């Protein structure tokens, strides 16, 4: 039985993944900022078989509470061995272009809040010499594009941070997993027209479960995004800059 902290527990991808944890009878500590929605997710996971479900209402940007959060999760569950970080916002690129405050807010939510959480968790896991850190980054961090480079910047920073963390924690037996989904049909992308490349959050959750089992490093979900991103990264910059992406 695992003791899992989930930050951004009302995210569709996190919820689908948490159902898999619940079915395995894990203990769960859920964090989200909307109390009614958090309560609905918690009752669902309890009914589906989680051994214990605890919740905390918290805005992930409230970084002063992060240390306390991790202590709370650890004590109420009697241990902490896995953290899934899933919260995020799909930045309004146009708004960010006309306002640095807006950009800062997006970087805060999609990057700095995660770095704060991970700093605390990394130290705990390093000390206890085991643990699994799973973070949902994005393929959007693999290359900057005019349509969403603020979001992409945040995700790129998160991916790079995780890379360093993985390297540092390897010797302590801590697993660090970077999840890079492609297009996922969730409330975040409700307004997008959906084509053939889109998948359900359940599909992504299957990949996340597998990555945890296999102690993977960086996982593109679904798998074909790995190849799409190789191609996209290979395009020379002087050509790329002329493309409408």
């Amino acid at each position, binding site marked *: 039985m695992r003791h899992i902290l989930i930050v951004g527990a009302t995210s569709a991808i996190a919820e689908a993944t948490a159902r898999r944890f619940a079915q395995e009878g894990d203990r769960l500590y859920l964090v989200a900022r909307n109390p009614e929605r958090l309560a*609905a*997710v918690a009752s669902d996971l309890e009914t589906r078989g989680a051994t214990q479900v605890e919740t905390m209402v918290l805005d992930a940007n409230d970084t002063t509470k992060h240390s306390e959060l991790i202590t709370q999760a650890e004590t109420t569950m009697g241990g902490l061995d896995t953290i899934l970080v899933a919260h995020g916002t799909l930045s309004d690129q146009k708004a960010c272009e006309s306002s640095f405050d807006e950009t800062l807010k997006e970087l805060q939510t999609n990057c700095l809040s995660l770095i704060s959480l991970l700093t605390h968790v990394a130290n705990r896991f390093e000390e206890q010499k085991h643990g699994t850190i799973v973070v949902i980054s994005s393929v959007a961090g693999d290359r900057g594009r005019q349509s969403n480079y603020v979001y992409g910047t945040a995700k790129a920073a998160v991916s790079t941070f995780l890379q360093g963390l993985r390297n540092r924690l390897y010797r302590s037996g801590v697993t660090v997993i970077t999840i890079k989904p492609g297009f996922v049909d969730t409330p975040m992308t409700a307004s997008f027209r959906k084509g053939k490349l889109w998948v359900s959050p359940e599909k992504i959750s299957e990949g996340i479960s597998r990555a945890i089992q296999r102690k993977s490093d960086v996982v593109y979900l679904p798998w074909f995004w790995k190849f799409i991103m190789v191609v996209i990264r290979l395009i020379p910059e002087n050509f790329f800059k002329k493309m409408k992406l």
Partner: protein
Amino acid sequence: MKGYASWGRYPKAIPAMVYGPHWADELFPKDAHFLLPYGNGRSYGDSCLNDSGALLDMRGLDRFLSFDHSTGILRCEAGVLLADILALVVPMGWFLPVTPGTRFVTVGGAIANDVHGKNHHRTGTFGQHVQRLALRRSDQGVVLCSVTENADLFHATIAGLGLTGAILWAEIQLRPIANAAMDTETIRFSNLDAFFDLSGESDRDYEYTVAWIDCLAQGKFLGRGLFMRGNHATPQEKLPAPPGKTRGFPVDMPFPLVNVWSLRAFNSLYYRKQFAKMRRTITHYEPFFYPLDGVLHWNRLYGRRGFLQYQCVVPPESAKESIRALLEIIATARSGSFLAVLKVFGNRFSPGLLSFPRPGATLALDFPNQGQHTLDLLDQLDTIVASAGGAVYPAKDARMSGEHFRQYFPRWEEFQRYIDPRFSSSFWRRVTRT
């Protein structure tokens, strides 16, 4: 993008907008379109369609809210599938109180059509086991309904065809079982009289009864078929294994695979499937309740033009004569399906203003869509049903006339008062405006 068709894939309808709420606290979209909840699209005709209007895809509301293992009371959001409920509760010794012939329907859809199963003679309809529900309306916000709170709206919402608002969650009383097995008997019978005899003698001792009819048989074999009856099994030493993974029917057939030759072959084979007159087996509940769920998207078998399903009920006094008359027309037309299902409903009252089940015999079958020919044939069937004082099931209908609908469901005017002012459906416009 997901398609929003009905199971019969006829008629075609294109929604102007589709919204996918994920949370019970989400308000309705503000645009001017008429709204209609969409469950899992297992209705055959146009009751889950809203041509040029907006659909609320309710599948995102798929959370279990509570389950009391000792009383069997389950509260869940309306987009939860009956299949998900079974997966959760069967291992704990509980079962659905009522289930239709597919487990891929949502709780909201099951309530909105007040669905029935093979145990209607014992337990009535799905709506009778709903203890409470929460409805979101455009004019009143969230309304809790039960037989004691907002009882009128409760009775309008059961079999309310999705028109009284969006059901957010419901509380359902499940029934206990010893295990996942069914103790079943299949009996071959050679005509309609034999069916009614079998049904009469079985309904007392068997919770589930239904028959498959070879609807191409004529003359003294008219109405021959296989009678299936069963009960949840008592504790067993060895339990039957659940069937393997379901297979999807991958593509649309360019032409229908169902024609009079394939039908004749299938029906005769099915009838002769068992050589002995009676066979008793202990089976897993899945093949017993959901023989068609083994092939996902079997509706594609009928090709792109789709098909029409017809289900009617005729009153007990003249049931035998009416069913005989219906079967004669179907057998002569030679275009019925391999899926003719016949069952005698019990006398339990149905709670909804527009509930379809009522005392009498109910017959259901598919017809490949052959245009006007098919529509004319179904009109002919309607004439018999209407003159017998019966009714046609809206969940399976794509074509009944407004006049017939209003005769079949005399409380429709009373029902109209409870319709959410922002809700409408292709079905409702068709049967109230023509």
